[in-house]
């Protein structure tokens, strides 16, 4: 490229001092060049060193890390050689950082206006009076509605997407030449993510900025980046134009990573990448990926491969780039274990409504005020035995709330929940009989939270065994070991504590704990969202396996439509605690669909640079559902008139078991099918 690189990282190695006193590297001789107007994606799984690299580009190292060798040249000079004053001017000014979780990055006690003012005061030469106008201008640029109102708000009064936009506005305050983005859309809803990515693309283009985009999500990278660098265990294993890297990757790891991503168009389980990456700073000879590589030879295990030129402008760290095509990148094609639709019911929800607000002690004596609409309302569902029901929806749609209610942790305000044999479940877990409790088990989203850090795996698995079956001593130990086998972990894990396990292993232990009760129904609350994609694929495979073997009924909650697609027999779409659409998985993902399903499906990102999401509706969600009419009325792109504001739409039967709740006739909904 003709213009000189703005950020030029050469041979950068970073490490930490190990207990033995030796320097243990977490980044190995990384080269990274970014020019103006160029956007580079850094892809890698957790622990690959991608965030460390992004921070190092600012000349910043986390506590405990040290630069071993190499240079980080920004605008002609080494960042690590600059003075503190100089760095302070560059950071946040010419070089902006957008962090992963802006809710954490914004000061909770200061209004947005104050925080933007601060950024403007430090990094631009406006007179004090001009700040407000500039702040409004910045918020308009990041497409926040009512910028003047937002300025007076505190961070907690904004949604996750709005917070992220404010963070982008703050980074833009200093008129940066380069932006570093550390997973800026991870944890956001699909629609919000798609909107933010479009915004970033436009900003990069109009301002001719250099962008370094760090993410584990190849779909995001495909959308915003020109070039991609794939990191594995702290070293670059593949570098090249986004088209080549995502379509014909010349490195086995990149191929495995792509294969592990579930896709909308493919109703089969993604292929899992076996094994796990080496721990940061661990000693190694040969190729870091060799232990997990299907093509590995003795040469790979003993000699570290150099970067070589591969197909279509890629640089790959592999001895056999031409052989990598042998590694399949499509889904596993493994048939999903499917259940009979005419199985008897396992669980029924009948007009369940859930409220978080409670009338206060004085409410009885005060004049009656209209209560806000229920958080979850009018949920009627029947789940048949051995079926997997996917519950999809954005954050705040009440999916987890429904699971908590089924588990008895949150009593419903109205409605009943009955087991397959007709016995009604008491609202509260404390009143349920042990036998009822045993039959319903729950797996939580984040295993770091759901496993007690002070217990060993044996203790964790022993709890349900002791409680439900009264197992003791050797018998309990044996059963726990057998459970670990079913989740493909060995008995040697029994003595470990959660802190000694990887994310995927922890979630396997959590799944094993649920299966310890030999349950009929397992409630899965976003159980793969805290995991890396390759690990997620393995967990999905495991669930499918367990389902086939134990005929277990699953309720699988996720915000990720592709994951739900990969695993579910039936899917229910929720918006703000109300059902919009329900039906067999294939039917829900095809036309006709509810306008909301449509919006969600079109916002899904694929790891394909030629695929563009379509933004059909605004991403702003109101905090509470409307008091009357269709719950989706405020965002619906095809609203058909005042009837949507006043009447709750009827269920329209589209096909056997497929129903859509909308005023628009089915034949019109079918016309607007997914592109």
């Amino acid at each position: 490229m003709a213009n000189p690189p703005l950020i030029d990282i050469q041979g950068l190695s970073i490490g930490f001092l190990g207990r033995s006193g030796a320097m243990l590297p977490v980044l190995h001789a990384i080269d990274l060049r970014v020019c103006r107007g160029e956007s580079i994606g850094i892809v890698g799984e957790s622990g690959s060193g991608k965030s460390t690299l992004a921070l190092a580009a600012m000349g910043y190292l986390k506590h405990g890390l040290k630069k071993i060798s190499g240079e980080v040249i920004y605008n002609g000079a080494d960042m690590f050689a600059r003075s503190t004053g100089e760095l302070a001017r560059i950071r946040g000014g010419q070089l902006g950082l957008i962090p992963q979780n802006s809710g954490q990055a914004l000061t909770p006690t200061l209004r947005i206006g104050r925080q933007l003012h601060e950024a403007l005061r430090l990094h631009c030469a406006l007179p004090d009076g001009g700040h407000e106008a500039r702040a409004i201008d910045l918020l308009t640029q990041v497409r926040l509605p009512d910028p003047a109102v937002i300025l007076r708000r505190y961070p907690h009064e904004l949604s996750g997407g709005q917070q992220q936009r404010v963070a982008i506005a703050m980074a833009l305050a200093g008129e940066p030449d380069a932006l570093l983005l550390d997973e800026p859309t991870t944890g956001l809803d699909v629609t919000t993510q798609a909107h933010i990515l479009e915004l970033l693309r436009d900003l990069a283009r109009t301002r001719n900025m250099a962008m370094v985009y760090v993410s584990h999500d190849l779909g995001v990278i495909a959308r915003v980046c020109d070039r991609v660098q794939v990191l594995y265990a702290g070293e670059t294993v593949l570098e090249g134009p986004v088209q080549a890297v995502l379509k014909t990757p010349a490195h086995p790891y990149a191929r495995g990573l792509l294969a592990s991503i579930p896709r909308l168009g493919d109703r089969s389980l993604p292929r899992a990448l076996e094994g796990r990456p080496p721990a940061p700073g661990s000693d190694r000879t040969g190729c870091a990926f060799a232990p997990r590589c299907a093509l590995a030879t003795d040469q790979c295990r003993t000699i570290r491969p150099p970067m070589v030129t591969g197909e279509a402008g890629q640089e790959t760290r592999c001895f056999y780039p031409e052989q990598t095509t042998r590694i399949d990148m499509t889904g596993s094609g493994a048939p999903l274990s499917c259940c009979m639709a005419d199985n008897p019911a396992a669980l029924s929800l009948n007009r369940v409504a859930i409220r978080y607000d409670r009338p206060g002690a004085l409410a009885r004596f005060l004049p009656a005020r209209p209560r806000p609409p229920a958080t979850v309302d009018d949920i009627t569902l029947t789940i048949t035995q051995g079926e997997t029901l996917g519950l999809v929806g954005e954050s705040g749609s009440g999916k987890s709330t429904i699971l908590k209610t089924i588990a008895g942790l949150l009593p419903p305000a109205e409605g009943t929940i009955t087991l397959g044999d007709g016995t009604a479940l008491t609202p509260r877990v404390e009143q349920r009989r042990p036998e009822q409790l045993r039959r319903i088990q729950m797996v939580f989203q984040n295993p770091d939270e759901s496993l007690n850090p002070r217990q060993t795996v044996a203790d964790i698995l022993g709890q349900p065994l002791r409680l439900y079956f009264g197992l003791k001593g050797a018998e309990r130990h044996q059963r726990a070991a057998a459970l670990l086998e079913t989740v493909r972990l060995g008995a040697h894990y029994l003595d470990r504590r959660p802190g000694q396990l990887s994310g995927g292993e922890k979630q396997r232990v959590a799944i094993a704990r649920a299966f310890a009760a030999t349950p009929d129904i397992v409630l899965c609350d976003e159980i793969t969202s805290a995991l890396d994609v390759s690990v997620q694929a393995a967990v999905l495979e495991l669930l499918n396996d367990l389902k086939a073997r134990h005929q277990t009924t699953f309720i699988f909650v996720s915000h990720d439509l592709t994951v739900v697609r990969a695993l579910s027999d039936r899917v229910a779409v929720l918006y703000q605690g109300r059902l919009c659409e329900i039906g067999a998985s294939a039917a829900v993902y095809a036309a006709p669909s509810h306008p909301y399903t449509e919006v969600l499906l079109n916002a899904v990102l694929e790891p394909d640079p030629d695929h563009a999401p379509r933004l059909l509706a605004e991403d702003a969600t109101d905090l509470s559902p409307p008091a009357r009419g269709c719950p989706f009325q405020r965002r619906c792109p095809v609203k058909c008139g005042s009837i949507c504001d006043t009447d709750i739409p009827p269920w329209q039967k589209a096909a056997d078991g497929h129903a859509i709740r909308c005023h628009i006739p089915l034949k019109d909904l079918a016309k607007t099918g997914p592109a």
Partner: protein
Amino acid sequence: MSAPAAPPMRRSRLWDTLRDMAARPSGAIGLMLVVLHLVMALISPWIAPYDYREMNSAVILGGPTAEHLLGTDHLGRDVFSRVLLGGREALVVTGIATPIAMLWGGMLGVLLGLRGGWVDEALMRLVDAFLALPGILPLLVLITVFGSGNEVLTPTLAFFFGIPVIRVARAAAHEVVARDFISAARARGHSPLSIVRREILPNVTDTLLVEGAMRWSWMLLGFSALSFLGFGVAPPMPDWGLMISDARVYMSLAPWGVLGPVIALSSLIIGINLSADALAKTLGLDQGRKAVV
């Protein structure tokens, strides 16, 4: 951090913790002081050069000499011997009362933290009301009613010093209760007591241990303050608080008289505080300096 699999042969956690504490300067000094005091309290009856009751009218308020290293008091008793012996009562009483205070305060706090609701609210307001009083006042009231003596002092101290522990234990439990493994245990149907014992207590013991060490030093000060006021140890038993009180009267004549007990008491308190500080850091409760990798 994903350390390589820990070797199966591990010494007890207590030993590991003590060793890690001793590796820090604060821990090394603190533990040394505490151990020194404990050893001294144990062996002082055999090494004290004089009987603590032995009066010598020839050397009343005498200065430090070779026979009397720290001089003599207003009754001509050897101050050095009395300093050596003066911590025994305090250590025994607080040594028993501290664990009792931690136990009842800790258990109640954790239960309230788990249960919440109006019982929690009501009891916590009571605790607040109590904490608003100057600490020594209710102590004095109880002692005036029931009389002094160790059999009264021990339960009294255990009761009053356990009240602030409720607050600490409740706060620590609150942090744990919000986590999903508690929801998971509730959803499985475990009883509250089982949840407290298996899920919460293992996660709050660290906090309670550090708190206990701090409470111990507070209690020692409280005990000495009572003795100083004449409500604690009865003469002629030597006690640092009492000795300071006695020597204070003659400070202008024999300023060295207060020196011995003051140094003894403060070195023990400082030792405990330093140890508590090192313990907090070792257990990772001190968030300020946590390594990233």
